[in-house]
């Protein structure tokens, strides 16, 4: 009897999603939210969280229709490879863009904070480790996620708690006021990338209605647990420097970490610790994204050698991340890929659902 391909457990999924939030919310995201509104910061967060939940439910519905199969494989079977390729292409470009931005943004962060003289092209070489893990498969990624989740979340929470020791709560206000101004600001939309962890996990592993329910539940738990952490990334610098000054900071949370000083803390420069811990998040999430991309390409081109697929993807990501000229270009890329992100959030699952429904109806008519 053929064994079913392995699937992620609820805890695996939860760990991965928490790591995804940790990898994307700490450095570039706080400045986007701080610049997006004059009202309460938690409101845009809640709006995006609700949008993400809606999208997650759509994906969950789509994945629930699979019977122990991979999503892209099923789409290829239902629509044929050319049609599936057209549907998946924006999704693949989105993942590729997300990878490039994450790699380059993190390398820039290192250059700005810890290793100013090290060339970006050398730092981008860190992609090799996630590349190797992505090639090893989904279960090694899940196992690594379980370990890194325990270590990195513990350290992040400790750093955040230390950060709370010198804040002025009055600077965080207004706590309730909002006028919806963020809806007109592009930074609000640019920040959508941190809510999309479930999009990547949907593309890897095999699903059935039971696993799909688990997938949805894990994302909700991860969202609930990570929400205070994400809010902390935004509110801590605001409650330390005030709204106006924080708006002018490129990396508010990093600056916040720089400002922490206590005689009982062994290390003086907590920024270095934060950036180092973030590396664990980033490497794992890049492995996840690479695997999602590699597996999707493999499903679309089943005859291609996986080693070649992953090798070419890693090379392309490395070259693209090295080719971005500046930090502004990174921010620009985040904004200009908004359309792709919206497609990944809603377009892709809706199209997938429609395809599977049509296919099912045809089969019923035929039988």
């Amino acid at each position: 009897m053929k064994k079913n391909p392995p699937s992620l457990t609820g805890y695996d999924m939860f760990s991965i999603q928490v790591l995804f939030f940790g990898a994307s919310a700490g450095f570039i995201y706080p400045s986007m939210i701080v610049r997006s509104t004059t009202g309460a910061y938690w409101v845009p967060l809640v709006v995006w969280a609700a949008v993400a939940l809606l999208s997650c439910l759509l994906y969950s519905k789509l994945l629930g229709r699979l019977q122990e199969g991979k999503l892209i494989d099923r789409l290829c079977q239902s629509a044929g490879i050319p049609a599936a390729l057209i549907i998946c292409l924006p999704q693949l470009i989105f993942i590729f863009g997300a990878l490039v931005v994450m790699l380059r943004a993190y390398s820039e962060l290192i250059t700005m904070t810890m290793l100013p003289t090290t060339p970006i092209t050398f730092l981008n070489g860190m992609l090799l480790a996630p590349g190797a893990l992505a090639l090893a498969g989904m279960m090694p990624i899940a196992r690594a996620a379980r370990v890194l989740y325990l270590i990195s979340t513990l350290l992040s929470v400790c750093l955040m708690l230390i950060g709370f020791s010198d804040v002025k709560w009055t600077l965080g206000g207004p706590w309730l006021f909002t006028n919806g101004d963020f809806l007109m600001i592009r930074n609000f939309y640019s920040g959508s990338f941190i809510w999309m962890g479930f999009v990547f996990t949907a593309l890897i592993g095999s699903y059935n209605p039971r696993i799909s329910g688990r997938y949805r539940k894990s994302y909700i738990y991860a969202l609930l647990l990570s929400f205070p952490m994400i809010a902390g990334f935004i509110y801590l610098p605001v409650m330390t420097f005030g709204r106006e000054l924080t708006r002018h900071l490129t990396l508010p949370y990093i600056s916040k970490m720089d400002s922490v000083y206590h005689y009982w803390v062994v290390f003086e420069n907590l920024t270095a610790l934060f950036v180092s811990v973030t590396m664990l998040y980033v490497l794992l999430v890049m492995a996840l994204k690479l695997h999602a991309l590699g597996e999707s390409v493999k499903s679309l081109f089943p005859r291609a050698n996986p080693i070649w697929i992953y090798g070419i993807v890693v090379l392309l990501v490395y070259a693209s991340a090295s080719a971005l000229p500046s930090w502004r270009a990174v921010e620009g890329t985040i904004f200009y890929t908004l359309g792709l992100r919206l497609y990944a959030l809603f377009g892709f699952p809706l199209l997938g659902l429609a395809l599977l429904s049509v296919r099912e109806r045809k089969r019923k008519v035929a039988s």
Partner: protein
Amino acid sequence: MPEILEAIHRLRAGSGSRSLFGMLRDAFGDSADYRTEAVGASGSEPVYICFLASLCSTQKLDLLLGSTGIGELSAKLSRYNGTSIGEADQPACEKAICNGSAVICTSLSENGLLVDLSETQQRGIGSPITESVLQGPMYAFNENLDANTALIRQQIRSPKLKMWETKVGELSQTRIAVFYCQGAADPDLLASLKERIGNIQADGIQDSGQLLRLLVSRKKLGLFPLAMSSERPDRSTADLLRGKMVIMVNGSPFALTVPAVYTDFWHSPEDNYVNPYVAYFLLSLRFLAMFMNLFLPALYIALTSVNVDVNRLEISLAASASREGVPYPVFVETFLMLLIIDFITEAGIRLPKTISSTVTMVGGVVLGQAIIQANIVSNLLVIIVAATAITNFIVIDYQMGLVQRILKYFIAIGATVAGLLGIMFCFACLVFYLSCLESFGAPYLTSLRRKGAIQP
């Protein structure tokens, strides 16, 4: 023993040109311990007993060879009180002689009778050397498979304990046994293990470690040990009850437990015998020691050469002051000291106990003091290296300890290249590597908690 006498008389003369007696003489002729003694006569033909004196029990031999008179064969045989005697051809006789049996034949017969006179040389049951504990059973496996089997059976007195045995090695014909608890062990793993052992092609196997290398294909052979090696019967039986399998090699006092996951190597057998809170504390201590062992030298390099601003100013100034006059970069002095401490450790292990303490004293105290006074390394580094060496000895499993010794260099290289980030990158690589490993079908990074034991 009239039936033995009858069997001797029944031995037929060979139709070919060579008799068994002659062929055995050709096969073992150049072995100084090969003996042939005339013990009587069958008709006109003298009856010989052929054996390897080094493998036979002198006590049992005395019964057959005690008197030199040729005519007293039936009297001698009547004194024999061993296992039943079987007839065998030349290849079987050669094999039997190598196993300690004696062959009785006439000068012309083509077959012989096998008499089991074997005596296994073994040491007594002693205390464990590599896994000493303060509480718990104090006896260990020895090199005899039958004795080891008895030690396991004495701890699991249940028919559910099964033992599968085979021989491996073209020339050594080493006995290999696989123990498992029926109902608890994975039947797929058992089948795969039998197949793997059956496929081993080797001239001889001397130790369970060698067997493990042969069991794991060259492709999957990595840095980390994929099976738990233990000389403690209590540990092996506990593992058996948890559904694992134990492989034993005749001639090796170490049992292999498969599958083994990473956290298994950090549990001491003592953990089951002390208060659980104390056990958790000790476990935490071991993990802390593991992290210190891996990261301490690397952190020294990172914080004194690459990320100088991360440390508190007072510590950074103290570190700089201690390095005053040291002519080498931080990573050179660190690698130098790490190598020296590894030399001392290795020398301490290989030398006899009486000399090893002197070497440790000379290496640790005299050399350490001299090297600081000569301004070759800093004071701080000596503290770091000493702490690293001590934390390495906390590692429960010897093989894992060796791996740790290697890994600290790997992480120190990361620290040299990119400071704290290099350390984190190396750590992430390590986790990625471990997450890809599998030990006989079980993921190496399975769970921090051990599964409960089954009731036999």
